[in-house]
């Protein structure tokens, strides 16, 4: 974290602390079984991965960050089955298809237990989990205003972070809480760990200032990578977008540490509309070695990623604007640095990768929503503008 920003923040924070603050939150699931289904499909006239492997310049990408392609796409199809007994125990399983791939992934399959003592709640979960340090991780396409994830998640988490592990969350009814997650470490940015190789801790807090609801969250994550390859080149599942190589090309060994802040401000001051402002800032420090069959160089990288979104909701209508930006500062030590940077996509471009999007969404029917998005995409050297139309359906039982 850049100390100068924190210092400024500390100075200004006193101005914002209000004496009549109040806060919210405990999870109360409905007992019994439930089935939730979501489908999002879209058409776009241009994508980031048209005929090529998408790589945000300056970033060692991987995981399931496949970019987008021109044409129709099944962006997300999700089936989630959950069961919660009347006491403490619950289980959740979720299968999904994401993006323009054909394979079905088991996104989640875990058991959980919930205890509540007074105003305090303890939640324990184990199995295949979707990380919860930021609520953005658990959000499916259907629940987002924009079909695509923020660039920050593509750059730092391979789209999203799912892995086998366990977590504990301690919440208080006042809306504050802390959590810890420990994972095997087999998902980007971690890979190939014998012992738990990934984990994070997070804390959250909800506040209310008169007509403003503020939801704040901070997290720290650590991920260890051994022999990490860009799985988009080697997975053989049709994700390579015209790149035929099954050669992993390069490997990364090292550590990634991330620090993140998320804030959502909900303003209820207008009768005719609700205004939400969400902002996330993440910083990743990456240290390790990049190598290919012959060469290796030490990498010391800092990635600063941010996104902010403004959302105005009135009845069935939503207007949203979002801006993403990524800044990388890479240092490669060793004579192989230039060659490996070229190979792995670590060379930066003249401008910081960025993207500006506007979306209009309408809840057309109870379970059907349509949207149109305009993108000014500068995530690669080949900047472009695109239009996207999307249809989203969701259903549930009972």
């Amino acid at each position, binding site marked *: *974290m*850049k100390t100068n*920003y*924190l210092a*400024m*923040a*500390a100075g200004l*924070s*006193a101005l*914002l*602390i209000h004496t009549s*603050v*109040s*806060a*919210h*939150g405990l*999870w*109360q699931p409905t007992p019994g079984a439930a089935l939730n289904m979501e489908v999002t499909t879209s058409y776009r006239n241009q994508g980031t991965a048209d005929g090529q492997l998408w790589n945000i*310049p*300056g970033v060692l990408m991987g995981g399931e960050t496949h970019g987008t392609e021109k044409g129709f796409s099944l962006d997300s199809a999700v089936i989630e089955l959950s069961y919660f007994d009347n006491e403490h125990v619950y289980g959740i399983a979720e299968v999904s298809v994401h993006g323009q791939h054909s394979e079905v992934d088991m996104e989640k399959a875990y058991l959980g237990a919930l205890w509540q003592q007074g*105003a305090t709640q303890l939640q324990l979960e184990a199995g295949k989990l979707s990380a919860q340090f930021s609520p953005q991780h658990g959000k499916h396409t259907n629940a987002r205003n924009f079909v695509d994830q923020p660039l920050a998640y593509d750059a730092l988490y391979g789209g999203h972070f799912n892995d086998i592990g366990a977590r504990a969350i301690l919440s208080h009814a*006042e*809306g*504050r809480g802390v959590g810890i997650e420990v994972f095997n470490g087999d998902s980007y940015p971690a890979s190939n760990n014998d012992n738990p190789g990934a984990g994070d801790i997070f804390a959250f*807090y909800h*506040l209310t200032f008169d007509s403003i609801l*503020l939801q*704040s*969250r*901070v997290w720290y994550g650590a991920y260890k990578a051994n022999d990490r390859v860009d799985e988009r080149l080697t997975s053989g599942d049709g994700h390579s977008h015209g790149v035929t190589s099954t050669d992993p090309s390069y490997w990364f060994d090292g550590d990634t540490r991330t620090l993140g*802040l998320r*804030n959502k401000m909900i303003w209820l001051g207008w009768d005719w509309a609700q205004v939400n402002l969400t*902002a*996330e*800032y993440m910083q990743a420090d990456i240290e390790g070695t990049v*190598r290919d*069959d*012959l*060469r*290796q160089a030490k990498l010391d990288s800092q990635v*600063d*990623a*941010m996104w*902010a979104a403004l959302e105005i909701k009135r009845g069935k209508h939503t207007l949203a604007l979002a801006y993403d930006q*990524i*800044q990388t*500062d890479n*240092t*490669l*030590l*060793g*004579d*192989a*640095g230039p*060659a490996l940077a070229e190979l792995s996509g670590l060379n*930066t471009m*003249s*401008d*910081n*990768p960025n993207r500006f999007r506007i979306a209009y969404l309408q809840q057309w029917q109870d379970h059907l929503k349509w949207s149109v998005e305009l993108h000014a995409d500068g995530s690669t050297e080949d900047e472009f503008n695109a239009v996207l139309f999307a249809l989203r359906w969701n259903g549930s039982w009972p």
Partner: protein
Amino acid sequence: MKTLHVCAQPMLRAFFTLLFVASLFGLSACNGSSKTTFVLETNSEFSWGLSESTALPIEPDSNPMTEAKFQLGRHLFYDDALSGNGTQSCNSCHEQALGFADGETLPVGSTGQVLARNAQGLLNVAYNSTLTWANSSLLSLEAQIAVPLFGEDPIEHGINDSNEELVLDALRANPLYPDMFAAAFPNDGDPVDMNNVIRSLAVFVRGMVSFETDFDRFQSGDTDALSASAQRGQTLFFSEGLECFHCHGGYNFSDSTADRTMYPAFIERPFHNTGLFNIGGTGDYPSDNTGIFELTGVPSHMGKFRAPTLRNISVTAPYMHDGSMADLEEVIDFYAAGGRNIAAGPNAGDGRLNPFKDSLVNGFSVTPSEKQDLIAFLNALTDESFNTNPRFSDPTE
């Protein structure tokens, strides 16, 4: 989600408010420009004459490249005084117009002894991960150059303990050398010695690098640099059917390549048996030329030699380690057959069945026109600028 409405603790309230403000300021943290910085471990003062995108050769710490050493080495390379009887220089077997090969089947040493192996061209020798045809222990030019200078079997330059001082005296007597040695080795009291001779020659030979062929120009985007025939030949060369590129691949057209970007532990030093011989059906090669078996004594190493670069191949005939093939057509026929069958004579045997033959030498089928396409591609690997570059020429002419 059920929410409750209660009062918050002042400390936590302050902390999370601080976080909110910090995140807003964090957004502005991306205002700078992205950058990737390279910190190179070795920096060379020497002017290699290569493009920035070309990886530089490994430069030993014990003998850094300097222009003064390069120029001294160049003079020594062409000087007959650098032999026991004053009749032979490096240039005797390494002529620039022939890519620094000699055009002979086998070279002849200063005392008339015929060597067992063909004289190789010297283009980009600095990129070889091992040196000479078959010696897994020769990893530096400094070590290799001592072999022709002082070797006793075969005798090449013929320098030995009895004439070494005479050779050095001859160098001292040349009015050019004292100053050149002093400039090249300014910290040495008496710089005219054999160690510095070897260092200077090594610097000169290491500096003989070039990537200026039609193939390189084509790779750089000049689509007219390769004829249609050569482009078809290129496709054949890099095909799995012919397998050529497995041993003669990479930017230097040899699988025995090293440069300073490579991690030392990853550098490969392979040797291959191509099925030239199979004397008596036991896999043997002629006893004076058994490849790295000569050094290791490992039976499976019989007949294994380093795959040389194919750069300048059109001017470095005859071919193979024993110079036994006169032209490229014969070489292609040999590989198409998957080895050589010698029907009669002391070396009789079917090399195609050599038990130690490399599995990639399986034979293939090409039409006469495809063979011409292959040759057109191999001709496009000729580096005319290297073969005529005054920087590498005899300084006395």
